[in-house]
């Protein structure tokens, strides 16, 4: 995703001279080309994220489109009040980009796990929250946030994720992308879990369960129309994210479901527990330890569906 982001950003900077990149002394090996080609639109603010964000707001209020860039929680939590007051309150045209969303920096320890970001950022007024699922979505999302006049948060994974979308996509902020049709349930994924989600859908298909698969790349605003159709047409909703189950995609979908349907909808959130992960290891290792392997998710979905069917059968007796 990181490569796709920078390729798209270079194109955008070529097209629009308002595009600026401000980094917090991170991005070794990836920011240099932008700095070389657009030296007057590049800035390394140093290891000072509060100032970086205030500067970005000041540049944006002077007519620029400003990308701030750092890793994991650094460009959002260290400077959260600057994000809220300086960027969101002023509707400043700032795009905050974090590489290492979720557990991408797994082995670096819990300080580098960005696992509450979606929850926190989606609560800020005016903030658009985007977590692309693969490099194809990343490139499209970079373009889309540049066209949106106002604050955006772009949560990227790491470098080298596989492409999930076979070809070009129609990417609209706030509109989910349907990757699989299905009638038995809907699996909604955000961010880097999209690959896992397709594996889950495959596994379910082998056992005769047709899963609809939605990539909810925009967590805010949430595509409630897609969720509404999913409930009507498939009956059961599962969310999948590399994020705490508190307040992220699962939380957002739960809020919508609870207020929209008079009777409970079969629903389960797959994500991380609201804990500091005690596991040391790679992204994949820590995901697996928290039950986020494709196999574990598929089995849990089957178990949930069976429970729902059993309860329904008892109710009709």
């Amino acid at each position, binding site marked *: 995703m990181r490569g796709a982001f920078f390729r798209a950003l270079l194109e955008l900077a070529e097209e629009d001279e308002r595009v600026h990149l401000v980094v917090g002394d991170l991005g070794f090996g990836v920011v240099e080309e932008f700095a070389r080609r657009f030296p007057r639109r590049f800035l390394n603010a*140093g290891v*000072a994220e*509060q100032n970086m*964000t205030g*500067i970005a707001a*000041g*540049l944006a209020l002077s007519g620029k489109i400003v990308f701030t860039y750092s890793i994991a929680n650094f460009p959002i939590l260290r400077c959260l009040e*600057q994000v809220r*007051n*300086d960027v969101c309150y002023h509707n400043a045209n700032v795009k905050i980009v974090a590489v290492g969303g979720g557990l991408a920096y797994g082995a670096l320890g819990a300080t580098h796990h960005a696992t509450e970001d979606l929850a926190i950022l989606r609560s800020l007024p005016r903030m658009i929250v985007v977590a692309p699922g693969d490099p194809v979505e990343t490139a499209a999302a970079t373009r889309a946030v540049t066209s949106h006049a106002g604050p955006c948060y772009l949560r990227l994974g790491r470098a080298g994720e596989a492409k999930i979308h076979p070809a070009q996509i129609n990417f609209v902020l706030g509109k989910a992308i349907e990757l699989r049709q299905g009638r038995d349930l809907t699996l909604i994924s955000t961010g880097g879990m999209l690959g896992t989600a397709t594996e889950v859908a495959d596994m379910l298909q082998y056992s005769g369960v047709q899963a609809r698969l939605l990539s909810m790349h925009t967590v805010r605003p949430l595509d409630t129309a897609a969720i509404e159709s999913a409930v009507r047409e498939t009956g059961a909703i599962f969310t999948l994210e590399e994020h705490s189950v508190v307040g992220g995609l699962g939380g957002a979908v739960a809020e919508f479901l609870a207020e929209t349907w008079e009777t409970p909808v079969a629903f389960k959130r797959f994500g991380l527990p609201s804990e500091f992960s005690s596991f040391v290891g790679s992204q994949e290792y820590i995901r697996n330890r928290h039950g986020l392997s494709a196999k574990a998710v598929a089995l849990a979905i089957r178990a949930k569906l069976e429970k729902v069917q059993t309860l329904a059968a008892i109710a009709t007796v």
Partner: protein
Amino acid sequence: MGCRESASLARKIRVQTVRMIHRARSSHLGSAYSMADLLAVLYGRIMRIDPKRPNAAERDRFILSKGHACAALYAVLAERGLFPKEWLEDFYLDGARLAGHATHVGVPGVEVSTGSLGHGLPIACGMALAGKRDECGYRVFAMLSDGECDEGSTWEAALFAGHHRLENLIAIIDYNKIQSLGSVKEVLDLEPFADKWRAFGWGVREIDGHDLAQIEETLARVPAEANKPTCVVAHTVKGKGVSFMENKLLWHYRAPDREEMTKALAELGAEE
């Protein structure tokens, strides 16, 4: 001759401000009064602004980083004709346009909303950098409190501005030496204060923040040193202008009652 004009504007700011804070039963009168003379010179003599075109691209920018003292800013903006003086009458009250910290929404002349300390100088750096890179001639003035120089973000911005030689940036520190819970010396001593700014790469001037001639002379000659941002350490008196408020921590918080307001207005040479 500029001084007479500035003295008159400063007096108007103080008169409006005490009325506003009395009506609103709000606070921070002492913080507004310590910077009233600085504001009068800035808005009367120094800044290039056109009240009819508050968003003109070439305007000088002013950022009140010490947003709690906004009553004085609103007063000077109204006096300069950026919005009607009637707006001052319901400052801070239910349904008012003007909030108790500097708020840009619907208020011409307020560049950015502040209130949480330590935000103003970074934003000012961004605006100054844009002006410098785009070769626009505007200057960016940021008014800081001494208390907010406790904030790390202020020093992040200070380091940045010095490094990038933002000579179109002028920070003015309203150094009244009293912060929220006591004197600056007791709470978190800033001295040697001017030396700190010098060490961060700024051209520094220390002035009497109530000497109108000295303020004008200083601000008319910026940058103080070529290729450097300018820091004006303005030694001021909290509550300046009303004898019983001067140098009193109490007037960071207290709203004057009717009797106190009457006494204050009499000292300022105004009617109630």
